């Protein structure tokens, strides 16, 4: 495929366009229409693919897409201006998508860590509702880059009253990254 692309720039262009249109096909909606929206829409979908799967659809459909379609349909300006503004909007999202996703996971971890722990359904007795768990102090540590820090995060999980529940939940949600219930997750599975 690569050598074919090198020989034929037009083919390469078509290939890139096809890839753009393919990106995030589960996010494609009938709402995208016209040349003004196809390219920024495709870039925005590529950005959304970085979001945690549990929140992806909601954020894309409720926040990102309505704002993009406002730019391309309602904001003042000529069509070319709208196209440029919309494309800039989507490119900035693509550039920061990984960071945005990381922020979302940290926030989720923080929420989990201070969540009201309901003793009965989880079979956990002796834990007060609203107990702050040991990971609440430094949620970032659980998404650290270095192996040492990740080991430290795992050791904090050791002795946590909801370790098992946390691990089971992470497996259910297919957490793409981070330490949950004492285990490191990569691409939805404990390593």
């Amino acid at each position, binding site marked *: 495929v690569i050598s074919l692309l090198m020989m034929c720039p037009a083919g390469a262009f078509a290939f890139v366009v096809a890839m753009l249109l393919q990106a995030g096909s589960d996010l494609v909606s009938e709402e995208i229409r016209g040349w003004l929206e196809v390219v920024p829409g495709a870039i925005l979908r590529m950005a959304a693919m970085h979001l945690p799967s549990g929140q992806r659809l909601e954020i894309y459909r409720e926040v990102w897409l309505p*704002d993009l379609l406002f730019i391309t349909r309602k904001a003042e300006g000529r069509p070319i201006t709208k196209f440029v503004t919309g494309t800039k909007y989507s490119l900035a*999202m693509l550039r*920061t998508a990984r960071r*945005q996703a990381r922020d*979302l996971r940290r926030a989720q971890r923080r929420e989990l860590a201070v969540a009201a722990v309901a003793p009965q359904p989880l079979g956990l007795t002796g834990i007060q509702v609203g107990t702050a768990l040991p990971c609440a102090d430094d949620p970032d540590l659980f998404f650290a880059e270095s192996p040492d820090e990740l080991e430290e995060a795992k050791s904090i999980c050791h002795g946590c009253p909801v370790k098992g529940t946390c691990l089971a939940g992470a497996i259910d949600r297919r957490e793409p990254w981070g330490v949950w219930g004492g285990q490191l997750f990569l691409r939805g599975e404990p390593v």
Partner: protein
Amino acid sequence: VSGGVADLKLSPRMAQIIRVFLEDPLKERYGFDLMHATGLPSGTVYPALAKLQAAGWLTVGREDIDPRVEGRPARRFYRISAAVVPTARWQLAELSARYRPPAVVAPRLAGEGGAL
């Protein structure tokens, strides 16, 4: 851990956004308006809004339009929590004091004071 409103310390970028809300605390603001008003890109505005929302500084709602009439989906809007307005004003004042350049010192004339 308490998650109280006062716990959040505004970053300069968040401060730029909060400043727009303080111009008219009752007004609903949209993501694109905020990008326009602050000159910040989308990728900066959304994470800041999410943090402000999580800290209880902003509340969110849905634009009141009929998507079929307007030909586009309703957007999410943000509004500043009334309870946070005094804290927000105070933090902005504090930030601006921190970034204000020091008072200009009059250039010292050669030979004056005799020190150098």
